[in-house]
């Protein structure tokens, strides 16, 4: 059953708690980008994907699929997978620790249900998603393939190979979201290797492009619904998702500084106090 906006808000708060606790627990990981995508992954996993978390099959036959291309935001991904039932929530406590299935970057190698490809080295997820989408067309399935990339990730040339491929081959069961947070490790994306007008770039490649405020639950819900409606019309779909890195934890917002560092005890307490949730910590 679909969750109400009020229920989703609680999940988002819990996801933020999970993210900062996981990263704090091992004093490594990427909280900033993870926090910015909490609303998106919550809506996607709780309300949008047609999938079977309690019966994970690698081939995703007759299911929707999500591929995380920017694998470093694994904390938000693992939280979304656990809260939709792919594995026990308690396992989040093992994040990045020895012998864990929750590796620093997601992998199929340790057998974690819900993960279908390793990611971390950037730029490969859109191509992988194209492959799954083409397989679904061969199978005459009407299910969709979603993929998330970072905006900095678009600097990888392979992304544009896949952008070109998907448009030329009318891969219209593919919904690619770009997390436009404007930040990357070395600074603001506009200063490192800026994009002028991403919308025009994707449209020039013959994609259907829509935008949303990725930190507004109603907008994320509505836009993902709209993307579903747009599918099957001869063009791949791109969602430009504007987000704030570190969203929901005030001291992590407004800079790229929290891309890949962990909060200390005091900062953790501060972050948790800003995000009470009824759901309960792992």
């Amino acid at each position, binding site marked *: 059953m679909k969750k109400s906006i009020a229920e989703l808000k609680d999940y988002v708060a819990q996801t933020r708690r999970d993210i900062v606790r996981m990263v704090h627990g091992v004093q490594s990981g990427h909280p900033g980008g993870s926090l910015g995508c909490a609303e998106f992954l919550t809506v996607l996993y709780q309300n949008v994907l047609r999938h079977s978390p309690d019966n994970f099959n*690698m*081939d*995703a*036959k007759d299911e929707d699929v999500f*591929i995380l291309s920017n694998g470093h935001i694994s904390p938000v991904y693992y939280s979304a997978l656990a809260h939709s039932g792919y594995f026990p929530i308690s396992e989040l406590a093992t994040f990045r620790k020895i012998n864990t299935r929750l590796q620093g970057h997601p*992998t*199929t*190698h340790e057998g974690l249900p819900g993960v*279908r*490809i*390793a*990611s*971390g*080295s950037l*730029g*490969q*997820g859109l*191509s*992988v*998603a*194209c*492959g*799954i*989408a*083409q*397989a*679904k067309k*061969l*199978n005459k399935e009407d299910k969709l393939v979603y993929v998330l990339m970072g905006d900095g990730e678009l600097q990888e*040339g*392979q992304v544009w*190979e*896949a952008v*070109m*491929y998907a448009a*030329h*081959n009318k891969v219209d069961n593919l919904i690619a979201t770009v997390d436009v947070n404007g930040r990357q490790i070395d600074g603001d994306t506009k200063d490192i290797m800026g994009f002028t007008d991403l919308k025009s770039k994707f449209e020039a490649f013959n994609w259907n492009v829509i935008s949303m405020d990725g930190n507004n639950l109603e907008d994320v819900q509505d836009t993902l619904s709209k993307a579903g409606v747009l599918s099957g019309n001869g063009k791949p779909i791109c969602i430009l998702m504007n987000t704030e890195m570190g969203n929901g934890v005030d001291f992590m917002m407004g800079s790229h500084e929290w891309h890949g560092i962990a909060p200390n005890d005091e900062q953790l307490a501060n972050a948790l106090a800003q995000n009470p949730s009824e759901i309960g910590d792992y």
Partner: protein
Amino acid sequence: MEKKDTRSGFGDGLYELGLKNKNVVGLCADLTGSLKMNKFQDEFPDRFFQMGIAEANMISMAAGLATAGKIPFTGTFANFSTGRVYDQIRQSVAYSDKNVKICASHAGLTLGEDGATHQILEDIGLMKMLPGMTVINPCDYNQTKAATIAIADHEGPVYLRFGRPKWPIFTEEGKFEIGKALHMRSGTDVTIFATGHLVWNSLEAAKALAEEGISAEVINIHTIKPLDNKAILDAVAETKCVVTAEEHQMNGGLGDSICQLLARHTPLPVEMVAVNDSFGESGTPMELLEKYGLGIKDVVAAAKRAIARK
């Protein structure tokens, strides 16, 4: 003796696979004719993906197709199948345990006139270092065709390496067993372990050696990984000296794998016929094999050196 290119063995094998296994799909990066994939493309257009000149996208997309249960065979030159896309293979295929078959033509010096940019001599090394990757380098048309068909039934990533020139067909048609060394000629003085085109040169060398009263055993190591350790150790038990022969760099190739095995189990003299830390250049395949020390006379000389070191 009839000659045919090994890439045609791949193309014909892929076509046969297409007829019998509907999960087999083909991907090619703008080299359909060179890879002999046209027959598959014409007969199974829905299962053929023209990728354009975009090899990175091809490898990762193959990983996606494999995720969804297809058996993708990617086709391009060996250089663009390995070095150019190493990270895509490493992360999306090997580490992700995907059932992708990376099929690489025009490997080695015998690509010929196009020169060193296209003559990769490092690909076996690159691929065999990846955990879980199977590496196969068949020796003629029949063996390449059989290997192509066999790898579809092997669950896991495979690197299948073959070549451009017309080459003698000297193995029987039939079944291919991954990881099983093939005994080609018996001998008692020296064992020659060869792979790919160099199996033929090694057989010719063994004939020449016989005329001088030297008895050379020739073993075809078509599968470099996993290596048939038992067959190799059994073979050297009598001959006590070894020649390795391959169209590849000495570093990282078949000879290197065999040296590791022998060093751990039974150290013996080894002479390596391989390219010695050098790039290739333009020329005919035969001229290049001669110039870079991979000719029949080079295998003969290596055998004599190995025997002298016993």
